[in-house]
């Protein structure tokens, strides 16, 4: 035990004096936490949409006056979404050459409202209202005497004759022009579809909804981006340290003869493995503390780790450090060791929702992520640190515990203590 403690303190001291290791293992995850939290903490994203409104009121000299009432109502409806910022494009700007959209307007996406929009919407509105009335009569026909039904039909026919010109049974069309490199074209199209749908409802007089969606968050009062990313990047830090930094350090000790020197002392190989695991566990707890303090100071996140959270952090550090010891034991070159470690850690972090929530990933990836211990690790850590819950935590303990035992035995078995190259 004395040897184990002494070697652990030596490894800690050596690590703390290694600037590259400190940056890579501590500051790098901290920077990621700050960047990701800041990027995603700014509330809903706003999309800029330029509008070319060609539907102008008639003047004595022809079209060219103020925008028509309904075309402006559509623009207002867009602005009321809070996620769209409307910019104006001169109606005289020529958009026929679609390859020059951004050059001509200075915008990646332009919504074109055609001339006659107001008139066509009004016509379609009347036609649709009449259709609705007819449908209503048909559905309630048994309750209306036949003589009254005939009178209503005659009235509707008379109204139809008074419809504005241009009402030919097709809706008014607004067109969204986008450039090929417009990454936000998809979400903007969805938002505009929603806006147009609401506009349609209003144009036929449907002001009161028949069904609405309410969202209600249970448990924690507010869950912000830093709340998500703090546990995620604590796990990332543990994974990077265990699977990338440790193999590199072990391979270096092996190559420069330090390990051979230690093997010639009474130190045994399991003590070497356990000392590395203990060092990383201590670092994991200490660096978690640093990240929690930074998250509190910068984002106001309150995350006080209890015994279960600390135990989970240590268990993960044990499992992933032992995995790193296995990688370091089979690779001789430190550069190759860090590459192999990165080849394991980075894809696992990507598919496990470290960098973004799993919900935004394809369903196949989401299914795969459920098999990743890293997914369960940061999810459970979030339960313990942020949500003050133990949902799924004990499953994660079991999973990480099994991995820790397996990797520890593997690391002890594979760590070379004789026949050095």
């Amino acid at each position, binding site marked *: 035990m*004395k040897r184990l403690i002494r070697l652990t303190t030596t490894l800690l001291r050596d690590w703390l004096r290694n600037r590259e290791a400190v940056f890579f293992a501590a500051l790098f995850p901290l920077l990621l936490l700050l960047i990701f939290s800041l990027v995603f903490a700014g509330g809903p994203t706003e999309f800029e949409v330029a509008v070319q409104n060609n539907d102008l009121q008639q003047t004595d000299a022809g079209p060219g006056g103020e925008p028509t009432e309904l075309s402006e109502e559509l623009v207002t409806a867009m602005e009321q979404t809070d996620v769209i910022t409307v910019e104006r494009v001169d109606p005289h700007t020529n958009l026929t050459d679609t390859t020059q959209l951004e050059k001509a307007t200075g915008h990646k996406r332009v919504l074109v409202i055609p001339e006659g929009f107001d008139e066509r919407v009004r016509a379609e509105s009347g036609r649709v209202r009449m259709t609705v009335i007819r449908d209503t009569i048909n559905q309630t026909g048994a309750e209306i005497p036949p003589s009254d039904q005939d009178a209503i039909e005659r009235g509707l026919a008379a109204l139809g004759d008074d419809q504005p010109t241009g009402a030919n049974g097709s809706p008014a069309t607004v067109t969204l022009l986008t450039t090929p490199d417009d990454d936000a074209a998809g979400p903007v199209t969805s938002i505009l579809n929603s806006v147009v749908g609401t506009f349609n409802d209003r144009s036929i007089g449907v002001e009161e909804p028949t069904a609405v969606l309410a969202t209600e968050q249970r448990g924690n009062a507010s869950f912000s981006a830093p709340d998500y990313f703090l546990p995620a990047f604590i796990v990332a830090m543990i994974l990077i340290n265990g699977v990338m930094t440790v193999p590199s350090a072990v391979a270096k000790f092996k190559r420069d003869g330090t390990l051979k*020197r230690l093997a010639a*002392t009474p130190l045994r190989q399991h003590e070497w493995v356990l000392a590395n695991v203990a060092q990383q566990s201590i670092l994991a707890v200490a660096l978690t503390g640093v990240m929690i303090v930074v998250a509190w100071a910068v984002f106001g996140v309150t995350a006080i780790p209890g015994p279960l959270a600390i135990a989970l952090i240590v268990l993960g550090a044990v499992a992933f450090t032992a995995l790193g010891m296995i990688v370091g034991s089979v690779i001789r070159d430190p550069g190759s060791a860090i590459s192999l470690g990165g080849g394991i850690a980075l894809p696992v972090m990507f598919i496990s929702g470290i960098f973004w929530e799993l919900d935004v990933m394809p369903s196949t990836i989401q299914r795969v992520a459920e098999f990743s211990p890293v997914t369960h690790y940061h999810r459970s850590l979030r339960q313990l640190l942020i949500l003050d819950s133990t949902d799924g935590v004990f499953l994660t303990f079991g999973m990480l515990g099994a991995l820790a035992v397996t990797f520890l035995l593997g690391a002890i078995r594979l760590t070379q203590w004789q026949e050095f190259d």
Partner: protein
Amino acid sequence: MGTSRSDSVIRVDGLRKEYGSTVALDGISFSVRENEIFGLLGPNGAGKTVTVELLQGLRTPTAGSATILGRDVQTGSLALKERVGVVPQSFHTFERLTARENIELMRDLHADPAEVDTVIEQLGLDAYADETFQDLSGGYQRRTGIAMALVSDPDVLFLDEPTTGLDPAARRDTWEQIRHVADLGTTVVLTTHYMDEIEYLADRVALLVDGRLAALDSVSALIDQYAPGVKLVVRATDGPGETDTVETALEDAAQRTYRNDTGDLVGTFADRQTAQDTFSTLHAADTECTIDLISAGMEDVFLELAGGTLDAAGELR
């Protein structure tokens, strides 16, 4: 060959090590006596490091056995590591730790260590003990390595190529430290490919060639047996070309001629009279050379037994 004295602290019996079809060590046997500096001499790849690593329990022999202080090096490895100090070839340790911290680590890995301050003082490390290992010169790094081995208070100390890569002053300094360690009562096993190191330090020498033990005895006995004569060393003062005029004369008179690792022309003579006559003849020729008449050494023994000489890197030529 070898010794059967009862005060032997190391006994090696038919030790053999194979790597696939390559025989690194071909069944060597020898003993090391208590409190002697025992030299293992040989070119690179002769089997010196394999031998000491087998004795340290860092390798498993293909055949044969070895004991240190009466314990088998395989079965008693853990107990032996308490009593055996090691300074490996290309020694390295935690480079961001100070010399003192590295020595303290070694102290704490052993059950019955010496005082750190005492060892630091013995090796003259006082002024550098708080420098990080990576900031120390090669000579002081080697001293730190020896201190790390000595702090375990070993009965046997293995030094594997302890002066390779050091400048002449640092080499000489390291030699004095090794002498000092031996004077304190520690048995030292020294592997090297430097002839002068062996001649200066070793009480007895085992000469390894191609994994086999070619000779084993004291330096003087080996010289008496294998290179009893004297030699003339011709060093050109204006460049090697100037020796052309004396080369023919030397080849005619000497038993054998060769160039040593500094490029000097060397002629060996079985008897001193012939060598002195040749020395006079060459001097009379008034060449631009410096000519020295010296006794034969381990290099000549090596020449005789291995059929070549060693360059500065330990490669057989």
